[in-house]
């Protein structure tokens, strides 16, 4: 199940240069490239001649040339040259997709192009904001996109999956979590008030006493998860919204379905302390990456079990609340999108 009328991250900005990049998105092959003037393009990655992936071709004079017989396609998707003949068949054209570069990521719109409005791109400014240090990254994952959403909305797995990295039992034992569900958003909030700071926080935050610590997970469909974590000295008013003298980080996740069982996982870690210290950015990133790979091992293994028997039953527990609410939203949006598409098709008849 894919939601189509949304902006998805297609690539890291640095991946799309003057060489075509092929990537399957929502089950459709796409080729991304930039021309010399910096303009971004996204085409269907299938030559209309003999269906070779156009991503095997190259950019020649600002147009994309197919590797097989050299047909050339301009930014509009229209064929502008057929080697050996003057006549260009009318249907020699490829589908184009709206693309935008923002927050060091390349965003693509796979749905109805008439609905593509870049103002709807989910806010990930921390990745490109000078007040933050940040490093974006990409990983190909052998798991359905919703398994990754479930994982990020879930806090109790920290004690088990991340036992040796970021997790500890205190984080989940006697935990009180707030799950707020708006029509198109889930917010999971957790405060740990007046407790010692974890060692990693002490190192960068230079805390001398107890801290108020927060974990706030913002889910925006289809698969954007922005985690706001940090700590401030106890009693300075962080739970009331006054964050002073502390540290903050954002764990930023954008998951793009590749197929029903594989995903493109774009993520990044941003920090507000020593934002211009590249070594700090790297250190923070590496720390999170270790935990991140522990999660990847979990959802790829889940996917293997699910693929073996898709209808095997599963049970829910209280801690699933965030993930369950997110899936309810996706189900509703999917029904709405299907209904709108059906109405559109009927009107067109």
């Amino acid at each position: 199940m894919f939601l189509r009328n949304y902006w998805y991250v297609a690539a890291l900005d640095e991946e799309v240069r003057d060489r075509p990049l092929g990537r399957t998105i929502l089950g459709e092959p796409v080729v991304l490239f930039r021309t010399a003037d910096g303009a971004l393009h996204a085409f269907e990655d299938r030559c209309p001649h003999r269906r070779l992936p156009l991503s095997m071709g190259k950019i020649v004079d600002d147009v994309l040339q197919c590797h097989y017989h050299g047909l050339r396609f301009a930014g509009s998707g229209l064929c502008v040259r057929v080697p050996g003949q003057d006549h260009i068949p009318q249907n020699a054209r490829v589908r184009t997709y709206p693309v935008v570069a923002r927050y060091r990521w390349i965003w693509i719109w796979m749905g109805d192009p008439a609905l593509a409005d870049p103002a709807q791109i989910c806010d990930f400014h921390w990745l490109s904001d000078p007040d933050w240090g940040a490093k974006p990254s990409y990983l190909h994952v052998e798991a359905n996109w919703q398994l990754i959403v479930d994982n990020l909305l879930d806090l109790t797995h920290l004690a088990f999956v991340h036992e040796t990295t970021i997790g500890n039992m205190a984080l989940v034992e006697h935990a009180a979590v707030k799950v707020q569900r708006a029509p198109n958003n889930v917010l999971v909030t957790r405060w740990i008030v007046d407790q010692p700071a974890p060692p990693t926080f002490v190192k960068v935050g230079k805390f001398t006493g107890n801290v108020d610590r927060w974990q706030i997970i913002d889910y925006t469909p289809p698969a954007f998860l922005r985690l706001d974590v940090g700590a401030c000295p106890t009693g300075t008013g962080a739970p009331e919204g006054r964050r002073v003298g502390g540290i903050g980080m954002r764990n930023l996740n954008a998951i793009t379905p590749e197929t029903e069982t594989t995903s493109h996982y774009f993520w990044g870690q941003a920090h507000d302390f020593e934002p211009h210290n590249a070594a700090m950015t790297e250190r923070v990133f590496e720390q999170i990456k270790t935990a991140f790979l522990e999660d990847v091992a979990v959802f790829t293994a889940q996917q293997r079990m699910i693929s073996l028997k898709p209808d095997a039953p599963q049970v829910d527990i209280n801690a699933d609340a965030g993930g369950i609410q997110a899936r309810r939203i996706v189900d509703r949006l999917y029904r709405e999108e299907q209904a709108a598409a059906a109405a559109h098709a009927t009107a067109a008849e």
Partner: protein
Amino acid sequence: MAVNFRVELIWKESGDKEAASIFLTSDGRVILQGRGVSAEERDKLALPRDAELISVDRNLIRAIKDML
């Protein structure tokens, strides 16, 4: 290893209308937030005298339908 997880569910409509909380507790209960029903109200509305009654917002009913 016991994990006692208490979840508070809050449902919000498009505006800023928020429903009262639903609590899922580790002993398997669902606890709703409402207001006690006074003796005068019980008399006036012909409600049971000794049961523990709470009156809840209609939004909370929508929240229960939507979230549970």
